[in-house]
């Protein structure tokens, strides 16, 4: 696995597994690939599993916000799960924990779509 793997769960639901560092050098490519996946596979509800993300700069946060916007336009939802404590702390600093629905596990996040 490099920085991104996607799993289409059917019925417009999917999981994106992110890994490594999400900084300006890689975020643009991640955003492009995920947007293409969402449009091509007609995804409405997406879980970002960040279990393997060890480091995230503001470029990574911009990707999450862009995804949230795109999914909202499709009347869908974005859920985030498995944040490492260091990354979670930065979400708190930017006060993004109030913007995103954050879950402890991928299973919980998928279940929340209903």
């Amino acid at each position, binding site marked *: 696995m490099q920085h991104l793997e996607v799993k289409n769960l059917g019925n417009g639901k999917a999981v994106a597994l992110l890994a490594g*560092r999400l*900084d*300006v*050098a890689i975020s643009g490519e991640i955003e492009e690939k995920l947007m293409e996946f969402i449009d091509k596979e007609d995804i409405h509800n997406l879980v970002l599993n960040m279990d393997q993300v060890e*480091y995230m*700069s*503001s*470029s990574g*946060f*911009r990707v999450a*916000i862009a995804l*949230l*916007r795109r999914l*909202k336009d499709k009347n869908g939802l974005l859920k985030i799960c498995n944040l490492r404590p*260091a990354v979670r*702390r*930065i979400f708190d*600093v*930017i*006060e993004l924990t109030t*913007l995103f629905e954050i879950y402890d596990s991928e299973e919980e996040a998928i279940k929340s779509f209903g």
Partner: protein
Amino acid sequence: MAIQMIRETFGVDIQEIPRIKVFLEKNLVQWGVRENDLYDILLACDEAATNIVMHAYRHADEAKKNSDSIMLTVKKKRNVVEVILKDEGESFDPDSTPAPDMKLNLAGLRKGGFGVYLMKSLMNRIRYRCQDGRNITVMLKVLSS
């Protein structure tokens, strides 16, 4: 107590940002900087360097980007780490950047504003000045651990 200091120059390119992080992390760990302090300094420096590449050199041609560099100096004295970034791009004062607005970001009307906000939130002090055609950004972190 002696001051510990490192200095390195990096290219004006977003692909240099991970190199800056690796260089900084290796040296800060050797100096005993750990956990949240380490993460905060790495992230603040990442954001400052990203701003240089994305904003100070936004209008620069390839020749200028290729010939210029970002000079990074890091000092540690007792429990204070000082990070200094110098570049010769357009002046870019972090204080002139408005705080991030979530509503505008969500509406797609403004992208970002998070980088400078993070720098200010994670470090104890940020100072910027333009001197002899050089941008100088100085960030201070008082270590907690």
